[in-house]
């Protein structure tokens, strides 16, 4: 890290979770909860001959975003794939429960989830899976209390498995080109269904099916950004006041939105088919476009929806 490193200019994908937080919030505004000096670590890794992390790979705290109080959680995608373990998951659950508790007394109106996860940490599978379910419950509770929950995705591990489900429980979703959002990982699909169904080594395929640009065009993400931390910051500032309420009307709109997608594109097996059907220019070349060209094109396709 050079002394002249300016967090805003840095690339989200290359940054650590702590660096992303530092560049996302207003300078010096971040206060960490249950920091690494508390050594709240996983007790389950040693029996698998794995070393741990002092924060168990999840950083939680508060800060300000353009002067507004926010709560944040950031997963370190390079520690055990950012996967959910007992302590890691409990910190996230606690943050969201705290957000809900403070909502009635003038607390932060937004929780930012910097997701970077392969899903459940298999060495702690049941605790990880349950923490994901508890996180979903806590996101709903926070949203019911009027708190926006915004997912920011663009790291090495993506948002896989339960992380993908958590993503879609959020009020709004921001992705970069690097992002992948999915439930089953490519290798798991290949192991179960064969390489014809999904060649997990075909990187272009992985991004066509699960990548940030595809999610943006299908409505699986609400905002596409270029890859710098400042781009995520800008999107978060805009979206934190645009969150849909958690009501029957919103879920009914989501039902219609998801039903329409199946109706229109339910027969498609690959992204270019989908783009061709939706009338996009150059359906085979979406991945090759520059970010500017993609953004220009995506804006014409942008379906401003009131669902989630």
């Amino acid at each position, binding site marked *: 890290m050079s002394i002249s490193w300016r967090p805003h200019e840095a690339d989200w994908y290359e940054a650590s979770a702590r660096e992303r937080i530092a560049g996302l919030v207003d300078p010096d505004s971040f206060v960490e909860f249950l920091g690494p000096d508390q050594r709240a670590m996983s007790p389950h890794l040693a029996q698998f001959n794995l070393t741990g992390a002092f924060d168990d790979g999840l950083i939680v705290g508060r800060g300000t975003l353009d002067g507004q109080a926010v709560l944040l959680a950031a997963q370190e995608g390079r520690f055990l794939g950012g996967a959910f373990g007992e302590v890691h998951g409990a910190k996230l659950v606690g943050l969201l429960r705290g957000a809900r508790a403070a909502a009635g007394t003038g607390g932060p109106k937004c929780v930012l989830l910097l997701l970077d996860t392969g899903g459940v940490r*298999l060495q702690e599978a049941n605790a990880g899976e349950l923490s994901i379910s508890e996180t979903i419950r806590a996101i709903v509770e926070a949203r019911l209390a009027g708190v926006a929950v915004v997912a920011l995705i663009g790291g090495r591990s993506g948002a896989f498995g339960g992380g993908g489900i958590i993503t879609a429980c959020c009020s709004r979703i921001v992705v970069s080109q690097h992002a992948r959002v999915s439930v089953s990982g490519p290798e798991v699909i290949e192991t179960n269904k064969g390489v014809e169904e999904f060649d997990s080594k075909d990187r272009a395929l992985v991004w066509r099916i699960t990548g940030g640009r595809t999610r943006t065009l299908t409505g699986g993400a609400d905002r596409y950004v270029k890859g710098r931390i400042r781009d995520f910051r800008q999107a978060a500032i805009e979206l934190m006041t645009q969150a849909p309420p958690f009501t029957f009307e919103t879920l009914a709109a989501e039902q219609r939105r*998801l039903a329409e*997608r199946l109706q229109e594109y339910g027969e498609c097996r690959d992204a270019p088919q989908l783009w061709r059907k939706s009338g996009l220019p150059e359906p085979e070349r979406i991945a090759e476009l520059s970010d500017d060209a993609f953004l220009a094109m995506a804006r014409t396709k942008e379906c401003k929806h009131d669902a989630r």
Partner: protein
Amino acid sequence: MTLDEGMTLDDVLASLFPGGHALERGPFGTVHGTGRLEGGGQIALVGIVDRTPLGVDGALLLASRVLAVIDKGGGVPIMMLVDTASQSMTRRDELLGLNEYLAHLSKSLALAAARGHRTVGVLYGRAAAGAFIATALSTQVLAAVRGAEPSVMDLPSIARVTKLPLDQLERLAQSTPIFAPGLDPMVAVGAVAQIWDASKPLAEQLAALLRQSVEARDRRDEIGLARKGRLLAAGIAQRVAKEAAAGA
């Protein structure tokens, strides 16, 4: 499913609703209907059965059923019957955004609970991974019939991914419920609230469950602590929640 373990859907329904039930089978392995409760009243039924993997189509349909119950109002409780597999593992499901469809089902069940429709999960068969999260784990209270098989992932697959020998994993699984598949570990960590005895009428066990007051909040981590299956989660969540609420 072998006949000497677990119950079939028909067995479960007959035992749950001696007063009668009406269940329709829909596409994608889904079911919906109503059951008559002992002592009066009805419970709305939705489910995924026959070990069918949960994909975009099934999840959307189930969510629509739940939303229909909310729309009708009246505080009718909802039972989610579960005998699925994992989430549907296909290119098509992922391309269309399976995560959004599973989340939509989860959110719909959560909204139902928030709107006064008590949600009860009844796991009588299998459920794994994302399908487990979106169905059984998305209810306020989850009962499992002895013989049910919840899991995150089977041990041989865990062995493959973690590159550990299967016999070592099996040994470790004996000493801790934190990763092992199966019903007893899921009870120990707090995922499953109650095990129902298949040899006794399920109707009484359901009635007893419904007599308990609705949990206002998600206490599964506290249950996991009390049962000694998850020793750290509840305390950690509480500490962080306190700091998060105090900073406001």
